[in-house]
């Protein structure tokens, strides 16, 4: 017994050291996120005191003249993001179904890495593409006064969210047990019926997660959106708003942060926008995490 204890003590020290190190690293990541949020709060919270709420949630954003109405910016972000998801969801799920269920093995081997390459295109390149090719096309074909519209931004964002949606949805389809497919086919269902009535519904929660993650990607995107949406802080309430310019929260922060005097109301207002954006993305991620958690609890499919 005594001999054993002498033997095991030295390696335990090393283990203890490593364990502590890993724990510190793990906890510090959470710590950094908390610090970033605290910084955001410290810089942005004053605006909720300095500016009356009726102004802060008003309809006019003219920061140079003390109008800090964030409503057009919030609605602008939401309009562009939701449209992007509506465009990307059917395409993304259909692509995932094709890659996982329909495509022959060799095609899958080619398509999967190609889709991942798609995710690596810098957003500024997509923005430039949108500005010079997509925008004139939209103006000419849809008859909008200008091609720099919410819809143009949504198109570019949909393209950027696609790789995320496809890979996560594909993983979800992949996790559906083979026995489900076998059972369905054995019951006499066609391949199409198996896919749409059995496999996709079984992977539903994974697909919802894919959409949430794509949405988180879309709402935080800045550069491409700034280049193609026209950045007009108008209220997107009329029916034709989709084909009119909008200004998003991210584009506003990026365009205006460079010029503000530190500590001014405008500076705090931009951080205030950051807080609103943070809360929105947090809610979206929370929703994604809850759906994931719920399906794990059910003990069924991943």
């Amino acid at each position, binding site marked *: 017994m005594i001999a054993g204890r002498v033997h095991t003590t030295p390696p335990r020290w090393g283990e203890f050291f490593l364990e502590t190190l890993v724990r510190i690293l793990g906890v510090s990541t959470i710590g950094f996120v908390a610090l970033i949020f605290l910084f955001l709060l410290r810089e942005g919270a004053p605006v909720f005191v300095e500016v009356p709420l009726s102004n802060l949630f008003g309809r*006019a954003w*003219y920061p*140079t003249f003390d109008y800090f109405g964030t409503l057009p910016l919030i609605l602008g972000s939401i309009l562009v993001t939701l449209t992007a998801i509506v465009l990307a969801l059917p395409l993304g799920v259909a692509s995932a179904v094709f890659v996982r269920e329909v495509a022959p093995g060799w095609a899958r081997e080619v398509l999967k890495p190609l889709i991942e390459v798609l995710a690596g295109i810098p957003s500024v390149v997509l923005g430039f593409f949108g500005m010079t090719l997509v925008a004139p096309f939209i103006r000419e074909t849809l008859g909008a*006064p200008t091609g720099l519209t919410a819809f143009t931004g949504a198109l570019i964002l949909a393209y950027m969210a696609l790789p995320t949606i496809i890979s996560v949805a594909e993983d979800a389809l992949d996790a559906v047990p083979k026995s489900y497919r076998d059972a369905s086919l054995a019951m006499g269902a066609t391949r199409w019926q198996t896919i749409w009535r059995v496999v996709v519904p079984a992977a539903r929660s994974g697909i919802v997660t894919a959409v949430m993650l794509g949405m988180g990607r879309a709402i935080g995107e800045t550069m491409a959106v*700034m280049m193609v949406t026209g950045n007009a802080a108008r209220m997107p309430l009329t029916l034709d708003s989709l084909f009119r*310019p909008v200004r998003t929260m991210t584009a506003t922060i990026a*365009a*205006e942060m*460079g010029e503000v005097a530190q500590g001014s109301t405008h500076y705090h207002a931009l951080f205030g926008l950051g807080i609103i954006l943070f809360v929105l993305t947090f809610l979206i991620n929370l929703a994604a995490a809850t759906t994931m958690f719920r399906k794990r609890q059910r003990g069924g499919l991943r």
Partner: protein
Amino acid sequence: MQLHPDVRISVTGGGTGTGIAAMINGTVDIANASREMKPEEIAAARANGIEPVEFVVANDAIAVVVHPSNPVDHLTLQQISDIYTGKITRWSQVGGEDRPIVLLSRESNSGTYVYFLEHVIRLGEKDNQALFSPDTLLMPSSEGISAEVRQNPNAIGYDGLGYVTPDQKMIAVARSEAGPYVLPSVESVNDGSYPIARPLYMYTAGEPRGQVKAYLDWILSEGQTQVARLGFVPLLH
């Protein structure tokens, strides 16, 4: 740089607001500006122990530009103001085709934005509280404006004369309906007939000394030929 190989100059872009913010924070020797510093900006600089000194280094006209195919070629200041505040929304209301007007502007950190607002949209009236229409597209750069004006027959934009490329059409501007309608040029700025002209400034942190002084002296003398070459209006001597 060829005359003084020992001097290194680094230039950062942005807008007037960016330069003045950097001057207040004490990170630059010289800040270029297309408007005067505001009293509160000067106060902020003084609070940081920096005394900004103003130099007028050139003059500039702000050109109002449209697509080359647009038949409209002259406007009064009042008409431009009504267009940018959203009172006039179609080109047919100012003698053009039946098309919607798309308003383009620089971002609000640009000195050009503030100057245009105060002297054109508000017509220089101190108690005028008019603002850009919320439908105005704010472009992050001069290139953004020229790209959209080049390709969109509905667009109207404004920018410094030095930034106007040949594929945009400039509008002749008059102070009142009686005219005369004048195109922006070096001559029309110098004789005061073009209504939207302004000085361009350089601010130094304290009285310029050493290399900074040599640089400013050069700009105010020989450098004026470069001012003209780049499409701005040199100072009269």
